[in-house]
């Protein structure tokens, strides 16, 4: 029987998207399946660090070698997602002075270009550094925007004819005659299930890989390790900072975009869905940050979040920092007697391409495809073309209507200077709904239409991922009511749904603020509460807890014919 796809790849993070692209480049028909939005798991909750490998040179040289090799490849193939900040390893007064020499020779052994510079020179290039630093070494670290990277991978997969199915959860794997045959997918938005046939399946579900493998009767024990990160409101430095010591908590600071991210902690997690942030973790990170950059802990912390590392060692039992950061590719044909199923787990975002290559090699071997891997040379498309989106930001200018039809990918429109230019050009400040991130009414309407088949309790968070709505300092205090009002005014949500969307979004933004409520953030939270509770009376409204489907909206914004609850049959197509 002919299969619809040569390969289904499960997991919309960097690894899964990397595998799907690798296979698509070798001519295979691929479907990338993700239970939520792209980058919803660990890839979207990571540090933003393109590793030089220096961190692992002493304790895990195999990972270190993989990192430096892939670091150089990614600079070539994903230039739009990477900022070449360079990195520094610093011996602060809190670090063992004997470690640096050991580290330096380990770097040399791994092929990492580490060069000692004088502390004076380090301070000259980065004046915010701890002036009591004793030694400083330059390494080729960088900053990497994982949202842009995975977006670029998805754009490339689609351009090669592959499918990317977001909000499709795998609920079962079909195995017959010792071979995997299909996956059962549930469209999370419509609630409907489908069988999707494929000759092979790659399990790239990260911390959730054990659950997927179990569906085919294969035991895979991932040891999830939660790491907490805090984004500060300023960059502080323009170079990645690492403490030159044995890897520990809060010893890396990555400047990325307009913020700096300090991390991480390492806490064994029972459940990979548990990404709560504890108060001690935040305090620990700020105190460690203070050792790198004096005054760090007094600055405004914007958001805290946690990601779950999918640590895995075949036959190993080490946890947390002791566990290796290398990856494993499991061929379940030889390992468990289930042909056509491959699990790729462990590793780091920096090594996603190598992991993808190894997994794709096994798939190709299984399918008898004799095509070499091309991902080392294939340069990814730039997800943010400099001018293409300018007109879509503004429909209210006289000539704007005809230009606002189809954004290629609204969520890639992340760069504030582009938005500012569009807003300045239009002179229509009244259309700004989110003033922190410069999101216009037209963008909200456009994005809401694209999500028309969704459910009310997701809609504003989906708009956030598309447009960065509500991600600035006020954390949606002002734009939440406005966006809910726009949804209601355009007919996308009745008052109940719009109010529910508002309440839901307020609570989702709260989750990221909750661990950081002191100083200015606390004042902001009190102002937001005054708006929601004191001015709008949100607590007085009986907001239903269960969400209801959004009304279908046609492209011109009018209500569709389908009454709520009578959704059109959903077919498998790109979302």
């Amino acid at each position, binding site marked *: 029987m002919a299969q619809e796809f040569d390969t289904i790849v499960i997991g919309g993070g960097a690894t899964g998207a990397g595998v799907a692209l690798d296979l698509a480049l070798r001519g295979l028909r691929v479907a990338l399946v993700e239970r939520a939005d792209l980058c919803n798991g660990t890839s979207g909750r990571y540090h933003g660090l393109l590793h030089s490998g220096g961190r692992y040179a002493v304790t895990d040289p195999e990972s270190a070698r993989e990192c430096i090799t892939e670091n150089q490849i990614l600079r070539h193939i994903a230039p739009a997602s990477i900022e070449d900040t360079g990195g520094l390893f610093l011996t602060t007064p809190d670090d063992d002075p004997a470690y640096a020499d050991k580290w330096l020779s380990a770097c040399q052994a791994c092929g990492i270009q580490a060069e000692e510079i004088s502390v004076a020179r380090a301070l000259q290039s980065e004046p915010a550094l701890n002036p009591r630093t004793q030694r400083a070494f330059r390494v080729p670290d960088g900053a990497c925007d994982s949202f842009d990277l995975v977006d670029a991978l998805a754009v490339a997969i689609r351009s090669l004819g592959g499918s990317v199915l977001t909000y499709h959860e795998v609920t079962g794997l079909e195995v017959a005659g010792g071979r995997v045959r299909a996956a059962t997918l549930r469209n999370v938005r419509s609630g409907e299930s489908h069988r999707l046939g494929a000759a092979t399946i790659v399990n790239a579900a990260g911390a959730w890989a054990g659950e997927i493998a179990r569906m085919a009767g294969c035991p895979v024990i991932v040891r999830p390790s939660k790491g907490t990160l805090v984004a500060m409101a300023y960059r502080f430095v323009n170079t990645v900072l690492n403490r030159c010591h044995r890897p520990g908590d809060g010893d890396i600071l990555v400047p990325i975009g307009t913020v700096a991210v300090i991390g991480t902690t390492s806490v064994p997690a029972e459940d990979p869905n548990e990404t709560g942030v504890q108060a001690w973790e935040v305090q620990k990170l700020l105190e460690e940050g203070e050792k790198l950059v004096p005054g760090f*802990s007094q600055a405004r912390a914007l958001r805290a979040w946690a990601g779950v590392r999918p640590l895995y060692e075949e036959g190993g039992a080490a946890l947390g920092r002791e566990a290796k950061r290398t990856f494993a590719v499991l061929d379940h044909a030889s390992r468990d007697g289930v042909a056509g199923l491959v699990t790729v787990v462990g590793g780091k975002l920096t090594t996603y391409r190598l992991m993808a290559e190894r997994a794709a090699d096994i798939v190709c071997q299984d399918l008898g495809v004799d095509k070499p891997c091309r991902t080392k040379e294939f340069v990814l498309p730039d997800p943010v073309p400099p001018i293409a989106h300018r007109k879509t930001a503004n429909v209210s200018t006289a000539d704007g209507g005809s230009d606002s039809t189809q954004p290629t990918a609204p969520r890639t429109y992340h760069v504030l200077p582009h938005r500012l230019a569009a807003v300045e050009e239009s002179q229509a400040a009244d259309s700004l709904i989110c003033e922190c991130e410069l999101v216009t009414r037209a963008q909200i309407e456009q994005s809401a239409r694209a999500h028309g088949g969704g459910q009310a309790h997701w809609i504003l968070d989906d708009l956030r991922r598309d447009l960065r709505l509500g991600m600035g300092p006020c954390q949606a205090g002002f734009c939440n009511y406005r966006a809910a009002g726009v949804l209601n005014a355009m007919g996308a949500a009745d008052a109940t749904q719009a109010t529910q969307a508002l309440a839901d979004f307020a609570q989702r933004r709260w989750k990221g603020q909750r661990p950081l409520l002191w100083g200015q953030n606390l004042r902001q939270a009190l102002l937001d509460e005054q708006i929601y509770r004191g001015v709008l009376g949100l607590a007085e409204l009986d907001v239903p807890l269960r969400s209801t489907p959004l009304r279908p909206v046609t492209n011109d914004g009018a209500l569709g014919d389908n009454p709520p609850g009578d959704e059109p049959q959903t077919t498998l197509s790109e979302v």
Partner: protein
Amino acid sequence: MDDVLVIGAGPAGLLAAWVARRTQARVRLLTTGIGTTHVSPGWLSILDTDGDLQAALDGWVLRHPAHPYALAGVEALRGGIAALREVCAPAGINYLGDLQSNFRLPTALGAVKQAALVPETFASGDLRQPGEILIAGPAGWRDFYPALCAENLARQGIPARAISFDLPEMHAGQFDPTPAGLARLFDQPGVRERSAALIRPQLAGASRVGLPAILGLEHSHEAWHDLQDRLSVPVFEIPTLPPSVPGMRLYNAFKTALERAGVQILLDMTVTHGLVEDHRARGAAVPGSVREMIFGAERIILATGGLYGGGIVSDYRGCLRETVFGLPVMAPDNMSEWFDDRFIGSADHAIHRAGLRANQALQPVDAAGQVLLENVRIAGRLLGDYSPLSEGSTEGAWLATAYRAAS
């Protein structure tokens, strides 16, 4: 040397300065900036209750002996209301209502809030009155959505429908889209005339018309009367997102009244510390270009606000500090208990109860009740042991404590 130095220009500081000036010769007000007037809805909430407000207040004071109402006394609340009316009447802001029962007022989201006293421009929004309400707003304005408001009211059984009307000024290049910008437009008779002409044909038997609270800033009394005359039905205002136009009107009324009474208001004057001698405050220090400026006073009224206003600051270790005198701050021991996991839910956030401890004279005291600074009085949100949003006591607390602190 002043007789009274008031620190803070939120509503508590402004009212305290006015009350103090009635008996004292020299009153001065120092402030970092403008206070919570600009984020307030505009009405005066005293205590949420469905029944008799006076009885509810008496019971509340008995059950909560450390509450600002119990410390200041309900008489001080009455005094504060009377003093506020003195300040506001010349500016054309007339408060309706009393301590008998609460108004029920619609919000921009179509929820229903309670308030004991309201500016007359709000009063006909009282939802205890029958009749269909027409909610109207400028089409496409980002800060008010008439349909969302009316639809939410209607699903609670309150007859309401919505219209929007075009305001051509919004499409002009120099348009200020904040509520204050809209309010300045409604100061213009021509804008009111055109808007009324668009609303009038859509009345269709509506008993009254609700508009966002943007009906004039400098000439709000005239603007409201004029619109009402043109529409021939009562017109009322509904609070918008900040900045609050009713709050700005209130601030302006205070500023005019205080300046006329000879009270100097010094903005951008952040008091960095107080001077203390022998359990008495001697004055307050403000950084200056040459050297620190010292403002000496016989008596100091501390109305610097709470954690939002800036009278109390917090750090990542969970330390709370009162910014002028370093007075002890009551708060939950553990920072992780400050906030509930649910942002806007039925549970209150424990941090709201953080603040200073005071005696019935509103002097700051320690845990044993010992007076810490004899000639200092605490007014407004800086006080602890109450939770304004969940109690519905936001304005009542500053009315009562400012009056008491300054008397």
